[in-house]
């Protein structure tokens, strides 16, 4: 059981190539991290997996437990267990967090079935407590006027509530101070499970001090150029991405 990315090529709508043959496999029960310099295609990879329409897949496939997901719509992928924590979560003015998450959960139920409100709030509050979120948060509009840290916590809260099979966290550490980072990491660690695969996309090693990955990949120029254990992240932190410029590895 894994999320398998095979020879994935994708371009912008105008034809500019971004992903140039990505190969990657995230088995359930593991946490993988992708690191790489700005513009390497990391964020694009996460959006292509989620189904963003600004990108055109020109070759390759993404298999979720052996099943092709590229054919499915954005919301189908989500309901089938793919979750993306956004680098820049959108604001949804006027829609409260509680109603938003509820609508997302409701979308997963068969027609005619209603969410049990008591159980829903119990579960929501439990997770908010873990993420040290104020109860007032439920009544606030989704991401509207949120600080960077609040937005990222909200992403993790949504992931916990939607309980996906595969979670992709795009630059979840950016814009976080150290305290917020620890709380977010606590939430992500609580999500580690033999039934779930997680992919962390990050520019800095910092996040990986708190969420220990099983495998670290380095992405550059739209491809995975190196893979290794957790120690690879430390090495990158020390030496930077300079090695990418060496022709042998490019």
């Amino acid at each position, binding site marked *: 059981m894994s999320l398998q990315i095979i020879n994935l090529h994708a371009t912008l709508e105008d034809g500019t190539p971004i992903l140039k043959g990505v190969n990657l496999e995230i088995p359930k029960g593991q946490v993988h991290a992708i690191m790489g310099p700005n513009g390497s295609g990391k964020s694009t990879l996460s959006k292509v997996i*989620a189904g963003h329409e600004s990108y055109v897949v020109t070759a390759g496939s993404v298999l979720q437990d052996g099943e092709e997901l590229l054919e499915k*719509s954005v919301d189908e992928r*989500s309901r089938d267990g793919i979750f993306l924590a956004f680098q820049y979560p959108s604001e*949804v003015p006027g829609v409260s967090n509680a109603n938003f998450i509820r609508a997302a959960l409701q979308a997963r139920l068969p027609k005619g079935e209603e969410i049990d409100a008591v159980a829903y709030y119990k579960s929501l509050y439990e997770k908010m407590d873990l993420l040290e979120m104020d109860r007032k948060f439920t009544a606030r509009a989704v991401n509207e006027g949120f600080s960077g840290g609040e937005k990222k916590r909200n992403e993790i809260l949504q992931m916990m509530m939607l309980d996906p099979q595969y979670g992709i966290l795009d630059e979840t550490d950016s814009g976080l101070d150290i305290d917020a980072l620890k709380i977010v990491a606590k939430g992500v660690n609580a999500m580690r499970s033999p039934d779930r695969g997680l992919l962390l996309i990050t520019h800095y090693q910092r996040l990986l001090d708190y969420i220990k990955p099983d495998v670290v990949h380095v992405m550059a120029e739209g491809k995975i150029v190196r893979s290794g254990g957790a120690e690879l992240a430390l090495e990158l932190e020390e030496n930077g991405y300079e090695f990418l410029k060496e022709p042998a590895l490019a």
Partner: protein
Amino acid sequence: MSYDTLEALDHDTREAIDIDRTRGDFTFPERNKFDAGRGLTSATVDYISNVKNDPDWVRAFRHKALQVFLEKPMPTNWATKDLENIDFDVIRYYLSDGEKPKRSWDEVPADVLETFERLGIPQQERAFLAGVEAQFDSEAAYSNVKEELSKQGVIFVNSAEGLKEHEEIFRPWFGKVIPTGDNKFSALNSAVFSGGSFIYIPKGLKLKQPLQAYFRINSENFGQFERTLIIADEGSEVMYMEGCTAPKFETATLHSAVVELVALKGAKIQYVTVQNWSSNVFNLVTKRGIAMEDAEVRWIDCNIGSRLTMKYPGVIMKGRRARGEVISIALANNGQHQDTGAKMIHAADDTTSNVVSKSISVGEGRSTYRGQVLIPKHLKGCKNNTECDALLINSKSRTDTYPAITVKGNRHATQHEASVSQVSEEMLFYMQQRGIDEGHAMSLAVNGFINDLVREFPMEYSVELKRLIDLEMEGSVG
């Protein structure tokens, strides 16, 4: 992504952005005893005056108004050219069965009763209303106010009865808040008005439950011209709600009302409209209130139906510390133009006005906001706040905003803000990534947009709105 046709949206979205009008889309055969025929001449005016047995001063008032109407040009120098499609010669200006309004639903003719029952009026009256007037074409079929209120001196009758039976109260204010010559359509109404409510709330009486009027057009090519005057005496409070429907005819129908509100010292009038005309109705309405010292007039306005609505509720703040407010939601769908706004005239010191307007344009719908704020010379301490926000749902919809603010003197503060936004593709992607399909995501976004205003609307409004949405649900399964 495109939302070129409304059909592409799912049921819930349509529910969020539109309200079913099919429930009002039925008609009964006409059996009018009185019919002024088509077209408008001084003979038409005399016909109406004769049928209504108008006092002489009312007849003279109508004839003078007809002259003003004929002389005034269409306001197409600033308004839509669609007005030119109104054919005043084919309109029928007066239709009635000659019956007086009934005090009991049992006495209302069966087909008229069925009409209002299908629209839920008697049920609502029992549930939460202090009084109801139900107008069928030109005249009220039913008009009643709770007994204990009439004992306390509340008057709630139709316009003809008000002018005749309570002349001493109504005549001094009639046509004073909105003069005949205010605009072409106020002149038209003044010439041929029939029906509408005359309400008087005695000093110090605060009505806990709202009064309601319901306007129904049953006949094709009919023009409905009701005239409402509400006088809230010193320290009294009243909320008035109006609703309306018409069947969808092949040809255009005209609704042109005049509504005058008078809030005397310390009084408060709230006027709630849920405008849900079928999409061939020209809805050209003049509404204005006057607020004396410490009084308050609030217009709470929701425009969903009609082909063209032109309506700019106003408040003249005539006494110190008077307050005026307009809160409005407009939804313009394919083939609709909601041209709405507000007019705030500050005429005394320390007066405050507030305008909050939200419009949604869907498909090829067009919404327009026009506003006027006037703070004349030699006043102090006046404040105005205006916010208007527009949401565009797809690339063919259109929105315009034209406010005008005049401030004379340095002892005031005004603030105007307007914005236009879309449901952005990134927002939809975000919501869809949480498993919510495109239609539901759009629906959430639209609801979110009007959410803070809906909260501003009174409970009774949400009951009405909920009822309309329930009708939609019922219609969709049946």
